[in-house]
């Protein structure tokens, strides 16, 4: 009995440990690549090293200033603009999605209006973005929204609306109504009740929703690829443009960019781990 338990325990660690290694290998490879000097980017398979032999910050210097002492080439567009673009558009998109989504969620949850709104919002998430992009691209061109921060923020706010709406709706459904009813009896208007009573009660869920939506917006690639050209490209778009503009692959520089793009979602994701299931299933499952 005891021996089989030990055996089971060992087997579990073996499997879980193996899975963890697999989960980390690609991340580690990119992270170390970001600190490798040019000579170590590619080499014969027998000399491939997992840790940089001569760690350097050249790759980061290169992407932010356009040149670095040991990298022979120079680029005229640096990562500062794309970083600002990613940050600004993801943030504004999150604000749009969360404000609109929270208002609508409260309306549907409390006042029983717009009964088919939840499903119509959900369908925004069903279709491949590329299948419905033609009219959006024409509209964006017509309204001069292509390659602008407001154009990209607006579309981000729309595509992540399903998440903020559904999440906030389930959070509102969880809040007991008695307190709100008491406040109404006291003579508060419904709007004041929402603002002063309900919202403070969902502070933590609201924060979760904000972070969750931000991660989604930050992770976008396809939309920015279609709706930006030059001034407002985001980090992932910039990163992939780097190889076509250069002779040869800029492994280290791209890895440095990838690392910068990867860090915020991973950190924020760990912060909201408790609510991840709920977020990813549009509130259908509560953990």
């Amino acid at each position: 009995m005891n021996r089989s338990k030990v055996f089971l325990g060992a087997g579990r660690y073996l499997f879980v440990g193996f899975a963890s290694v697999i989960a980390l290998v690609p991340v580690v490879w990119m992270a170390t690549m970001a600190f490798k000097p040019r000579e170590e980017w590619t080499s014969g398979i027998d000399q491939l090293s997992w840790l940089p032999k001569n760690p350097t910050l050249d790759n980061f210097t290169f992407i932010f200033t356009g040149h670095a002492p040991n990298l022979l080439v120079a680029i005229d567009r640096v990562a500062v603009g794309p970083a600002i673009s990613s940050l600004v558009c993801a943030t504004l998109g999150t604000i749009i999605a969360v404000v609109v989504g929270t208002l609508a969620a409260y309306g549907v949850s409390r006042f029983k209006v717009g009964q088919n709104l939840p499903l119509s919002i959900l369908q925004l998430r069903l279709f491949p973005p590329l299948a419905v992009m033609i009219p959006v691209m024409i509209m964006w061109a017509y309204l001069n929204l292509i390659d602008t921060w407001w154009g990209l923020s607006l579309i981000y706010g729309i595509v992540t609306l399903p998440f903020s709406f559904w999440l906030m709706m389930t959070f509102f459904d969880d809040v007991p109504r008695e307190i709100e009813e008491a406040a109404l009896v006291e003579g508060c208007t419904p709007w004041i009740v929402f603002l002063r009573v309900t919202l403070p009660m969902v502070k933590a869920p609201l924060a979760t929703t904000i972070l969750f939506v931000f991660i989604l917006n930050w992770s976008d690639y396809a939309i920015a690829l279609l709706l930006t050209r030059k001034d407002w490209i985001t980090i992932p778009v910039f990163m992939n443009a780097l190889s076509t503009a250069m002779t040869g692959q800029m492994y280290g520089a791209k890895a440095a960019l990838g690392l910068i793009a990867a860090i915020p979602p991973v950190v924020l994701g760990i912060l909201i781990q408790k609510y991840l299931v709920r977020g990813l299933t549009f509130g259908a499952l509560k953990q």
Partner: protein
Amino acid sequence: MNVAITEHRGEALPVARPTINLAAQSRRLGTLMILPAQLLLLFIVVFPLLMQIYISLTYWGPTDGVSWIYAYQSLNLFDNYVTFFTDGDLWAAIARTLFIMVVAVPLEFLLGLGLATLFVDSFPGRRIFYSILLTPMMVVPAVAGYMFYMLFQSNGPVNQILSFLSNSNVELVWLSVPHLALVAVIAADVWQWTPLVFLILLAGILAVPEDQLKAAMMLGASWPQRFRRIILPRMRTVIIIVLVLRLVEAFKLFDVMFVMTRGGPGTATETISLYIYKQTFNGLEWSYVAAIGLTLLVILSVLAVAGMRFMKHEIEIEKAMEPKTVEEKTT
């Protein structure tokens, strides 16, 4: 103006506010609150949809020199839809997408389920391993594509590890051989999305009432028996949700392929989204792309409605199970 007046009245007679007034006020506020969402939907669904239908009935393209409004000049009614059904490349791309879905999603499901069962009871280091296993799905998909692009280079770490394991010089050119490129792309998808399946299934398993499991254990049910008879039936909804989520997302697959292979070599990893992308920017056949998009839209909507019905049915089954178990407990 109206709002101001009612508020003023409210202040004057705080106690005697009639409930009818409150109900009307609530409904008005509710309507106002959902208004922005409705406007956004109108802006991004209704108007573009009409435009897409219109353009799909013509030969219009962005290089025609006329605005889309004048697309009727090249009206052809259903030509684009006829092309849709006879376009071999498109159907190959659809078949490829389905193939990737059919291989990747079950793999993710089995691996995720296996890992989830290992995490049911606590063991030292559980939280750390849990966090580590969730990392892949937090990585920006385009960046994940680049990670796997590097890993699968012919002088990259994957070949290095294979060489080490087989004690010979493995020099596979992963991304240039059609079958191998497909393997690499599926590996990237499985790596990134198994954590999602794992996370949701684990939540589902942990939600199974503990007293039922304990009762079964006391009656002598083994772990496989408990898993098959109690946990699996209880997880119907969770399993359906996770499969629907993954299938929908896998059908949209774009970022990883675009970064890793651009659909290549040739068209070996060209998914439906990549095909559409190429038609949009290389072929510039926007009216045809609009027709493809609309047809997919219709097919997916039908599937979604059917799925929704099915899910409702399943949830009712699950609800019907509830009172039975209560009875069993009391008797």
